[in-house]
């Protein structure tokens, strides 16, 4: 099976004043084309470092990151990113914010096509009528929706989501999970989702990777096979409870509170 994202034996340490601080030590991750992997682990275990590696924003000390058969050596326009902080530009309208990547990446689209695409995406996430508003006029959940549109406007192959729903309240978060499925159905991408929320990981992803505590290595991989339409009720079935239980135990091991 060919993998769109392939991370092999990655080790990395940050140089600090008090010596090297190893964050990743033996990270393995493979996501097939169209797959959606969720990465969970104790806080501070190097999950965000992982996103920066995949995005080509930094190079690992050791090991390799492959995207679509190419060794990652620097940033690539085939990657989209969204963060916990929606980082919308306050001086631009929502529509202009969504169109920002198209000013950097050449897509061959005319100005009109770019705008139509941005409007279409905003419509898809339920932000119709907010195109000309400023980010400060939107709620946190709406800003995150706009940020999501911006991350996929240039049709990236790989979408990296670094805890995008982490700062939202529970109900808004669940709404956004549903939106995420809607977006994925219409705009195919291969995704890596960093999250703290185990329910989120099994609801959105088809593969959950548990990282150990720092320095992080791949500790456990779970394939998620949840049946039926993805609605919130799905999280309350016995299968989901079982999967969540296994993941919770793995997290406990990662935190070092249980003997492995």
């Amino acid at each position, binding site marked *: 099976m060919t993998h769109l994202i392939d991370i092999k034996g990655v080790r990395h340490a940050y140089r600090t004043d008090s010596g090297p601080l190893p964050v990743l030590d033996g990270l393995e991750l493979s996501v097939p084309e169209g797959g959606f992997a969720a990465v969970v682990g104790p806080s501070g275990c190097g999950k965000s470092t992982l996103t*920066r590696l995949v*995005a*080509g*924003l930094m190079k690992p000390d050791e090991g390799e990151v492959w995207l679509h058969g190419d060794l990652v050596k*620097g*940033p*690539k*326009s085939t*990657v*989209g*990113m969204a*963060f916990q*902080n929606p*980082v919308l*530009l*306050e*001086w631009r309208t929502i529509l202009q914010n969504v169109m*920002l*990547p198209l*000013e*950097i*990446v050449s897509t061959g689209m005319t100005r009109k096509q770019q705008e139509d695409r941005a409007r279409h995406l905003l419509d898809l996430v339920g932000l119709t009528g907010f195109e000309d508003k*400023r980010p*400060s*006029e939107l709620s946190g959940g709406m800003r995150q929706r706009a940020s999501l549109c*911006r991350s996929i406007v*240039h049709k990236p192959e790989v979408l*990296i989501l670094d805890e995008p729903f982490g700062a939202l309240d529970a109900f808004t978060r669940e709404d956004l999970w549903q939106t995420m499925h809607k977006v994925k159905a219409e705009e195919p991408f291969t995704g890596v989702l960093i999250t703290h929320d185990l329910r989120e990981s099994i609801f959105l992803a088809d593969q959950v990777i548990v990282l150990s505590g720092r320095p992080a290595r791949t500790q456990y991989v779970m394939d998620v096979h949840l049946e039926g339409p993805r609605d919130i009720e799905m999280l309350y079935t016995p299968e989901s409870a079982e999967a969540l239980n296994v993941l919770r135990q793995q997290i406990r091991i990662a935190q070092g509170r249980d003997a492995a």
Partner: protein
Amino acid sequence: MSLRQITVPLLALVLFGLFWEWLVWVNGWPNYKMASPSDLWPAFWKFRWLFLEYGWETLWRTVVGLLLSVIFGTLLGMVMGLSKTMRDALYPLLVGFNAIPKATVVPIIALMFVGQHDMNTILIAFLISFFPIAVSVSIGLSTLEPEYRDILASLGASRFTIFWKIALPKTLPEFFGALKVAVTLAFIGTNLMEIVEPHGRGLGHLFDSGKISADYPLMFAVLIALALMGIVLYYVVVALEKVFAGWAERSPT
């Protein structure tokens, strides 16, 4: 701008003038102790052409000094904001320079470039006002959250593109905050030089003439003229801020 936004400050000005007049009258102060608003009009009228001529002198020198501050301060702020090494190297130098009272620099500059009134005055206006601009631009750039950089950097955007599209516009509110301080400082600089330099020009020189000829109402009239020019220039900056950084102002909700 609504009618209320104009009438309220105007009314406050009139009330202040009346209070001032009353204060002088009730204490029976002679005009060399404290001139009253009613003493000022004759002084203005008597020297109306000089006020226009010198006022213009002071104004254009201040504005040119301020423009130099904006250019140099922004460039310096950029260098310090984008490079930690440059920040570490330049900060103590900059702080030390700013700590020197500019009144002591004035005679040095006046001696350095004897007779070149325009240049001396512009130079002092510039020297006294670039510091807040440089500091605020450098802080604005160095405190940019890494995510802002990453959204463009992950697409392969160049450093310049990131600076132009994100860092620079994001710094504008801080820049205008500093510019409001710099406007006032530049006026102080211009007048310092105009007062100290012999055979000078500008409102500072008119103030000095008033002092020499013991024309106290004239001295007060100069102060009022300077205050008015300061207000005008300040609101020009406010108007520019509305155009270029109006997005930073939250609507009260």
